[in-house]
């Protein structure tokens, strides 16, 4: 018989598999989300030659990191003078 737990009916019979699916699922989704965020939002990644070659300028007043222990980012702005 095919592996138990891969279809809904067999899953109801083996309820102990549910936390396993939840933990593995959260891990996979979290990893995929983080990698996509790095690829698309990181200040050091530029994908094509025609696009913006200085993606870091986008962050001159925004926060990139998930969490910042001191709230400095609220009154943030890049100190470099504009010319």
């Amino acid at each position, binding site marked *: 018989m095919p592996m138990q737990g891969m279809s809904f009916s067999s899953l109801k019979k083996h309820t102990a598999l549910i936390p396993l699916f939840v933990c593995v699922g959260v891990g996979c989704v979290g990893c995929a989300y983080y990698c996509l965020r790095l690829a698309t939002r990181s200040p050091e990644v530029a994908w094509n030659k025609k696009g913006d070659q200085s993606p*870091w300028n986008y962050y001159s007043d925004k*926060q990139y990191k998930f969490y910042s222990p001191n709230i400095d*980012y609220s009154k943030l*702005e890049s*100190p*470099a003078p504009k*010319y």
Partner: protein
Amino acid sequence: MSTAIMAAAPKASEKHSTAPFDPRFPNQNQTKYCYQSFLDFHRCQKVKGTNYEPCNYFKRVYKSMCPNEWVDKWEGQLDAGTFAGRV
């Protein structure tokens, strides 16, 4: 806890200042900060002339952030006209 110690500002001593935190470069790799400041200084000078005071902000930053060896090499390249960046 000790977070308070880490977040406390140091006693300001004289006018000793260094390159501030730039949110455009929040990560560990500060190479771009150094290079971008160098480029910005020379572009600023090109656009505004050598006597424009705010350009010196970039000069202070790249002097603090960039190893002297790199700065000497780039300035040598600028003088020889072989610098690869867009100034």
